[in-house]
C-alpha cells in the first residue's frame, strides 16, 4: 500500500518534471528511496541523479556506504559540499562546543539545486518525524528563494498531484510522507536492503552531553567536564556527526532493531540536538528551505 503509493509518486515526478534529483544523505530513509526508485522504473535505470549535501562532518561508514551504493546502482552522484560554501564565503562556520554545520547545509543545498537546474528534489522526509512535518504535502512547492510557506501550500486531493510552477521555482517531493519509522525498518527487513553498519550495535568512543551520547570525533569540541568513554551503541538516525546522538543498544540484527523500535519510548529525532533548540525549531528551518 505505502510502497505502491511511493512508486506512484516517483513516476509522477519523472513525468511532471524536467530535471528531478534524489536527495541522498546516506541514512536509511534515503536508502529506501533509492530502492523504491529502482523498483519504480524497472527494468530501466531510474531517470535522475543522486545529490548528497556533504557537511564534511560525516561518519566514515556513511561515505563508504554511499560510494558502494552508487557503484551498485550505476547512479550518477552529485556532491554539494558545505566546506566549499564556507571557503567561498557563502556561509560562516559556527564555533565552540555547540557548533554545527546543520544550519549551513541549507545554503549549500539551494546553491547545488540552482547550479544543476534541479526543478524537483525528491526527499525521504516523513510526516511522522516531527510536528511541523505533519502538514507537509507530497508535492511541496518552494518559491524562487527555496522557501516554504505553511499558509500557502496547495491542497492535495485523491492522487492528483499538481507540480506546475513558474521558472526558478522548484518542488520538494516526499514519497515516504505516509511512512512511519517502523514502516521503514520493516520494509528494510522484508526487502533485505543493505544499510550502513552504524545502524547496528557496535563499540564506540562516545561522551554524554545533556543526556545524549555523542560520537567522540575531531569535529566536536568537548566541554572540559565531558569525558569520552567506550560504550556499546547504535544510531537510530544518521545525520551530521556533530549532533547525531547514539543510543545504548545491543541490537545487532534487523529483528532486534525492529523489536527495539517497537518498544522505544522516544521518537527517533528526540536524539537530534538541532531540533531541540526551540519548540518550533524545525518549522523555522523548513521556512528557510531545509528539508
Amino acid at each position, binding site marked *: *500500500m*505505502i*510502497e*505502491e503509493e511511493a*512508486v*506512484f509518486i516517483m*513516476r*509522477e515526478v*519523472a*513525468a511532471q518534471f524536467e530535471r528531478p534529483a534524489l536527495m541522498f544523505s546516506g541514512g536509511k530513509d534515503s536508502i529506501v528511496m533509492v530502492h523504491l526508485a529502482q*523498483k*519504480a*522504473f*524497472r*527494468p*530501466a*535505470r531510474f531517470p535522475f541523479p543522486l545529490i548528497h549535501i556533504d557537511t564534511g562532518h560525516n561518519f566514515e561508514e556513511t561515505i563508504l556506504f554511499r560510494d558502494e551504493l552508487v557503484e551498485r546502482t550505476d547512479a550518477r552522484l552529485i556532491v554539494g559540499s558545505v566546506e566549499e560554501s564556507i571557503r567561498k564565503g557563502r556561509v560562516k562556520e559556527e564555533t565552540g562546543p555547540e557548533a554545527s554545520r546543520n544550519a549551513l547545509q541549507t545554503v549549500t543545498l539551494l546553491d547545488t539545486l540552482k547550479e544543476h537546474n534541479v526543478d524537483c528534489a525528491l526527499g525521504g522526509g516523513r*510526516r*511522522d518525524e516531527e*510536528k*511541523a512535518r*505533519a*502538514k507537509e504535502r507530497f508535492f511541496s512547492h518552494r518559491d524562487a528563494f527555496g522557501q516554504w510557506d*505553511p*499558509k500557502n*501550500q*496547495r*491542497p*492535495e*486531493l*485523491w*492522487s*492528483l498531484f*499538481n507540480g*506546475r*510552477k*513558474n521558472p526558478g521555482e522548484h518542488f520538494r517531493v516526499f514519497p515516504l*510522507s*505516509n511512512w*512511519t519509522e*517502523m*514502516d521503514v525498518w520493516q520494509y528494510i527487513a522484508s526487502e533485505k536492503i543493505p544499510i550502513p553498519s552504524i545502524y547496528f550495535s557496535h563499540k564506540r568512543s562516545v561522551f554524554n552531553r545533556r543526556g545524549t551520547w555523542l560520537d567522540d570525533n575531531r569535529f566536536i569540541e568537548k566541554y572540559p567536564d565531558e569525558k569520552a568513554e567506550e560504550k556499546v551503541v547504535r544510531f537510530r538516525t544518521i545525520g551530521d556527526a556533530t549532533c547525531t546522538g547514539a543510543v545504548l543498544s545491543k541490537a545487532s540484527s534487523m529483528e532486534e532493531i525492529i523489536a527495539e523500535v517497537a518498544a*522505544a*519510548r*522516544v*521518537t527517533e529525532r*528526540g536524539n537530534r540536538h538541532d531540533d531541540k533548540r526551540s*519548540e*518550533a525549531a524545525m*518549522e523555522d528551518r523548513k521556512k528557510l528551505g531545509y528539508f
Partner: protein
Amino acid sequence: MDLLRFTTAGSVDDGKSTLIGRLLYDSKSIFEDQWEALETTTQSRGEERVNLALLTDGLRAEREQGITIDVAYRYFATPKRKFIIADTPGHEQYTRNMVTGASTADLAIILIDARKGVLTQSRRHAFLSSLLQIPHLVVAVNKMDLVGYREQRFDEIVRDFREFADNLDVDDITFIPMSALKGDNIVNSTDAMPWYQGPTLLHHLEHVNMGSRKNSEDFRFPVQYVIRPDQDFRGFAGRVVSGRIRAGEEVVILPSKEQTRITGVETTDGPGNAANTGESVVLQTADEIDISRGDMIVRKNNVPEIKTKFEATVSWMNKAALESGKPYVLMHTSRSTQAVIENIRYRINVDSLHREDADRLELNEIGRVTIETSTPLFFDAYKLNNATGSFILIDPADNVTVGAGMIRNTSSSALDVPEEKSPDVTWEPWNIPRVEREQRNGHSAHVIWLTGASGAGKTTIAGELERRLWEQGKRTMLLDGDQVRHGLNRDLGFSPADRKENIRRVGEVARLFFEHGDVVICSFVSPYRADRDAVRGLHPEGRFSEVYVHCAPETLQERDPKGLYRKAREGKMASLTGYDAGHEAPEGKHVISVDTDRLSAEQAVDHILKQTGII
C-alpha cells in the same frame, strides 16, 4: 497489515484535538520526548493538566491562536491495524481542508459536543463526507461527562442526526457516546455509561470493514510514464486504479481506440502476469502502438465515458472566485487539459442543503457546474469510481490548485444507477412545499405505477382506478403511454434506449404531479426493471406503488385492443413486448400483483386500493 485512513471533523471547542491526543495517548502511540515537550509547554502556559490538544497543533501560528489551520496527518498503529488520521479544522473558512482530508478517507469521525447537540457545522461535515463518498461515518458524541452521562441526551442527538442524514447518501453510521477528556469509550470502555453496549471508538476503527472504496470491476489504467530502457523493451507505467488485468487479455487504448493485447505485466518485484486494483505496474503490449502519458488502457467491452462535456460538483478552494468562461487547467487521472466552466447550475448551501442561484463560486463554496474540456476525458461517475471520477482545477496564472471536482452521472447513464437520488441535495426547489399542499388537499400524494404487456388490462384498470379516487375527492392525474408518446415523447421510438428515455421522462413528470400533491396513476408497458426502479428512486419511500398487471399470453393475443399482436404476427412490427420481446416482471414484497384472467377491472381496483392503503 490493513491501513485505515480516517478524517476527524469538528470545531475548535468540540475537543477534537483532545480526542486525537487521547487516542494516541491511550493507544500508547506517544513517545516520552513528545510527552515531555507537552509538559514543558503546559507548565510555561501555567495550565494545570497536560493539554492533549497540544500534541496535534503543530504550527506556531496555530498554537498562538489556539486553533488548527490546515490538514495535519498523524500516524499510529495497533497490533490489528495501521491508521492515518487526516485532522481537518472545523470552522467555516476551511471547508476546503475538510474536502481535501475526506478525499482519501475510508471513514470520517464527526465530533458533536453533547451539550450543544447537532449544529449547522455537524450537518456540514456529514454532507461533505457524503459528497466525497466516505464509506463509513462515526458520530462521536463527546463531552458526555458534562451532561451527566445521560442516555436520554445521547438518544436525542442520535435522533436529530439521523433525521438529517436520511437525506444524505450515507450507508453506514455509528454513534458512540464518549468523553475524550476523561477517556471514556475512546480506547477503554467505561462504567460511566452502562446503558451503552457498543464498541469503543478504537475498537470500531480496528474492525470496520475495509475496501469499500475499491472498484474491482472496471479495469482502468491511466498511463503515467513510458519506460524504454532499450530497443527491446517498451512498457507503460501506471497504477491499476480499478479492476484488474492479466497478461494475454485484449485491451483498447484511449483516445486512439487502437486494440492490442497485453503481453507482459512488470511488477515492482520483477516480471509477473497479473495486476490488481491499486498496484503500480508496467504493462507491455503486443503491437507497437503510440501510447503516452494521459492515455488510458481499458477493456474493449468496458470503456469509460469519453467526452469533452460533463457535469460535476465542484468544491472551490481559492480566494479568487470560480467564474464561468474563464480557462482553467484540469488534471484528471494522468491527463491535463484546458477546461472552461460553461455554466454554474446552482450553488449548494452546505448548511441547509438548498440549491441557490449563483453566477460564481467563492472560496469554500460548493456547486454544480457544467464543464467543457479542450480534449476528451475518459471518466466514470465519481460514485462508481473515485479515481476516474475526480479532478482538480488549476489556475494557469499562478499554478495554484483552485478547485476539486467530482463528476456526476451523465443524464443518459443516470438510469443505470437505480439508487441515484440526488445524494448531495435534498430536493427542495418548490416554492410551496408538498406537505402544505397535502394538508390543504386532505390526503397524501402517491404514485401508482401499472406495468405489464400490451393488452394485459392496464388502461382499463388505470381509468377505473382514477375515476374511483376522483369520486372520493382525491386530486388525481392519469399518465398513459399513448397519450405521452403523442406529445412529450413524440421524438422517441421503441428501441431499448428510447424506451428507457421514455420512462425516464414520464418518471420526472410523475414526480412533478406528485410534488403537486396528486395521486398519480401511470400506465406504461415499462418492460425494464431498472427503469422502473429509477422512477421509484425519485420518490420517497412508501409513496410509490408498483402494480404488475398480467394474464396468460394467449389472452393478450385474444384481446389485442390495438391490433398490435396481429401486426406482429404479420411481421409488420419490429418487436412487441408480450409477443417476442420480454417483459421483466417486477419482483419483491412491495409488488401488487393483478391477474386479469381472474379479476374484473373493478375487483382489480379494490385490490389495489386495499394494498396501497390510499382509501
